[in-house]
């Protein structure tokens, strides 16, 4: 007779159970991603528009001097590629986190959260799965960018991976924290206006910080305190096989803080209670 037959459950979980759970969640997210081709195309079109149109237009306006990690003058397209990679991750993180808090994925979140494994671990796995999807998007972007003469060293494609995992987790948990913390912020337009655009523009994604400093010392100050700047710089250096230690520390610290905050603040009752009695959800 098994333990559960007597109504006695085993305490704790083995490492194999934790691993099985993680691989299961990532596997499902990848399967779903493969079924949602429109989402994939949409995620790629955004950065490619920036690369093909915006960067082409601005390459003559903005001069970029030689700054680390670059060893020669680089085209503007080359300069903004890491910023666009981080942008892909930011959109992906915000979108998937919003859907975790609000109705769209509530069915799936119910299934996830009745797993007996600790809730913090389930949410961590979910964030990691979202990051895995963003990696697929970023590498697809890099592949297309390669034909556009954005050709980092071959080893860079490998060394950028840990940087992308870290930045993906940071942006995903930031998205979850924001979604959990602000009651009225349920549509994506609000997040775009108040979070994504300010973070993106007040960062080193589109212009080097020394240029910003020349124009506005105040904005330079803001950019330096923007975690997104450090995500971009971490990715930029890693793409050229280097480590930007300041950015690594900032991104690691922010990832930890956002994740703890997000897990603490995550409240499924918000997504469920919103439907009210009419939806039979009381």
């Amino acid at each position: 007779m098994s333990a559960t037959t007597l109504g006695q459950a085993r305490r704790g979980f083995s490492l194999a159970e934790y691993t099985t759970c993680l691989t299961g969640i990532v596997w499902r997210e990848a399967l779903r991603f493969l079924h949602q081709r429109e989402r994939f195309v949409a995620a790629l079109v955004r950065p490619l528009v920036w690369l093909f149109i915006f960067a082409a237009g601005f390459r003559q306006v903005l001069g970029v001097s030689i700054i680390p990690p670059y060893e020669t003058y680089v085209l503007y397209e080359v300069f903004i590629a890491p910023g666009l990679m981080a942008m892909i991750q930011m959109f992906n993180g915000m979108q998937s986190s919003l859907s975790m808090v609000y109705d769209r994925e509530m069915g799936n979140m119910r299934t996830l959260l009745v797993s007996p494994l600790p809730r913090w671990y389930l949410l961590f796995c979910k964030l990691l799965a979202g990051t895995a999807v963003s990696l697929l998007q970023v590498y697809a972007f890099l592949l297309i960018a390669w034909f556009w003469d954005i050709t980092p060293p071959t080893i860079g494609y490998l060394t950028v991976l840990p940087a992308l995992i870290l930045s993906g987790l940071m942006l995903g948990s930031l998205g979850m924290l924001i979604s959990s913390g602000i009651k009225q912020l349920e549509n994506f337009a609000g997040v775009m206006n108040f979070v994504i655009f300010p973070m993106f523009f007040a960062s080193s994604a589109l212009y080097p910080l020394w240029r910003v400093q020349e124009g506005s010392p105040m904005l330079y100050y803001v950019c330096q305190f923007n975690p997104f700047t450090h995500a971009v710089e971490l990715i930029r250096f890693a793409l050229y096989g280097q480590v930007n230690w300041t950015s690594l520390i900032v991104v690691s610290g922010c990832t930890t803080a956002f994740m703890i905050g997000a897990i603490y603040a995550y409240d499924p009752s918000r997504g469920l209670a919103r439907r009210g009695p009419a939806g039979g959800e009381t």
Partner: protein
Amino acid sequence: MGRDDIAMTATDTYKEAGIRSQAAASEQDATMPPALSIRNVSHSYGTRRALIDVTFDVAPGSFTALLGLNGAGKSTLFSLITRLFGIRAGSIGIFGHDIGRAPGEALRLMGVVFQPRTLDLDLSVMQNLLYHAALHGIGRRDARSRSNEVLGRMGLADRAGSKVRDLSGGQMRRIEIARALLHRPRLLLLDEATVGLDVKARADILSHVRQLVTDQGIGVLWATHLFDEIIPSDNLVILHQGRVLARGQVARVLDEAATPDVNAAFMRLTGVQSGSLAS
């Protein structure tokens, strides 16, 4: 036979069946804590009180129907039992494991079928089951054999490779029940599992679940607003506007309400007119 005689006979049948099920339940009571024990649970959404001092038990190997209209608080209660919501007042135990203090142990013993569909429509039946198994830490090989086993039991062995989107509503529900059984729980919660299904699919699902109670001794909490899903041997909890108005064997509830059937008992206790009952 007059109208009163018929009512009398129906009440007697309920009582007899009730005594039988009471005897069966008390045999198990002696050896283990209740499959589900809800004690003084209250919950509010802002100022609106969804549950008020709710208390009842589900005995191991018994079928308990949680009867209430839409909006009575059934889904809130399910969200609290499954720790989706934090418990603010009262306590909930699963085989003696408190859901707040030992959620891991409690959730291991529990299978849940939620009211809204929670399957991935674009994935296959097997992929959905394997995902659920992974969430319980069950490895791939074991998960596959368990999936085949539960699909066979639910009469869906040939649909493992089908996309969920291509299944009927009744089949989807049976898949959800199969999924809830994958980790071999001792308590099964079903929230309005037959809503939106045709008469045959409803009957199929109900008989599958009842069979789980008799064959495997699983304790079942079956939330519903349909009177005809309740039979005399069931335990019954009537929930109305967040309060438990009656609980116990069907016969006892009928006795207390002095009515011949569940329908009349519900109306007498709640003051709801039959015309206002949604089906």
